[in-house]
């Protein structure tokens, strides 16, 4: 399986807002743990190591985007 690179959420704003709300009021260490937990929970849910590696490479910026055309949508 490959990591999805197309938008795949019905309401990305709602997810983003929920993430921001979850971090609200946390101290720095707790905020970092929250992200770490999310990464681990979501990674475990996905389970597919190839997908996770692709996500990690993209997050690190070590893989050039496959979208070589001008970045428009």
């Amino acid at each position: 399986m490959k990591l999805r690179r197309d938008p795949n959420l019905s309401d990305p704003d709602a997810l983003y807002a929920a993430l921001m709300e979850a971090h609200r009021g946390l101290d720095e260490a707790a905020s970092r743990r929250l992200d770490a937990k999310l990464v681990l929970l979501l990674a475990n849910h996905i389970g597919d190591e190839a997908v996770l590696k692709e996500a990690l490479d993209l997050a690190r910026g070590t893989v050039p985007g496959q979208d070589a055309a001008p970045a428009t949508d």
Partner: protein
Amino acid sequence: MSAWVPPRYAHHVPPRPGGVEQARVAIVGGGLVGLTAALDLARRGIASVLLDEDDTLSTGSRAICFSQRTLEIMGRLGIGQRFLDKGITWNRGRVFFRDREAYSFDLLPESGHEYPAFVNLQQYYAEQWLIEACEASGLVDLRWGSRVTGVVPRADGAALEVETRSGPYRLDAEWVLACDGVHSKVRRALDLPFTGQVFDDRFLIADVRMQADFPSERWFWFDPPFHPGQSVLLHKQPDDLWRIDFQLGRDADPEAEREPERVRARVAAMLGEGVAFDLDWVSVYTFRCRRLERFRHGRVLFLGDAAHQVSPFGARGGNGGVQDADNLCWKLAIVLQGEAPERLLDSYDAERIPAADENIRHSSRATDFITPKGSACRAYRDAVLELARDLPLARPFVNSGRLSQPAVLRDSPLNGPDEAPRAAPPGTACPDAPILRDGQPDWLLRQFGQGFLLLAREAHPVKMEGLRTVELRDSPRPGALHDHSGLAAARLGLAPGECALVRPDQHIAARFATTAPDPILAALRRARSL
């Protein structure tokens, strides 16, 4: 091009200073929303008195972006073409992060609409055209230089204390539409709480006059080299004016930031050396996202900023207020005309409070994205922007303002059945589409008029009381609209034989699988709270 000089309107002179006058409808505030309401009522044959403390138009670009839905409303009111002729049409936005473009987007990739996604226009032009149309209607008593100093609500209306240069008087109105903005005197007179979220960041608006070759696009910079750590928004306006919004941060000194030399330095840093420009208008502002608990208080109804305040990101202030007027005026008109009970006006709350909440939600989220507080918010914001260039999936998260969309009144008590659910469910503003009328190109929404309407595809409904019928046909037919492109049927999701009940504000009230009259008439009663 020389600077535009606003008109001055004559101060109203009350015929009997110190006396008492009557009005069926008093509109407080002659800005964009109050004028729209006055014209909408006039189009429905309802006279109103409009009170405005000033004697001229607003200054500066202000509600610069007029959305497609607002333009359609202005079209219904008869002045849509003026917006098209004067306004700067744009559909494309570009987002920059630091020193490069993150991505760009089209707001309305589809054609086949009379109006574009947005036009940019100084608010004063819109106000001027509305005033001209109000005056021409003969039904709007425009009273400039008239300050409301007191409001006493009553069961049958409200008593307004009005001050003029020539002295005070009392205006007893059966209905009061409070359109007097974010610092609404009516709201304060009624001592209504106006609560919500406070944002600390200060912003600077500069209307800059110059010859420049930026395209007609919305450009938004996150953390640009010329204004590090902050955001900047650029919009083109008519008359070689450019609107620039600079985020200033929380610690900015508003007095110092208004100094022309300081503003000029900021603009020069952005435009680069050697670009000549004049400052046309400058404002430093902060904002909140808040609203009244209810917009209807008996015979006093609040519209626009008087009812709800949003952040400027998303052009949801002016457009939201125009939709308030669009929603309220047909209801008030048929109540005053005896065709609906007064409780129909409760649906103004039921419909426009969710819409206001949607606007507040979107504009709050945009503000959180544009002015991230705390390391997590900033990390996510910058993560999104870094990913957006290469990864389409990240772009929906980029939030430089969710630009105003017409509210879908999903849960309205006025909505009837959805017998054939496809596109455009009840509560949706009816989408426009090109049609042929008598073989001539025209637009669907232009055919709607100001009343209730049954829009049927490939059907010939029987005549029903209080309901005009419009037939959409797949091929030319006398007296029917020819949906030659198929876009009308597609956007409405109407199969042959199906029909939709459309309200006077062009929102779909109900959808029917057949043109059998009983359910249609039941829905028409429901849409009038009968």
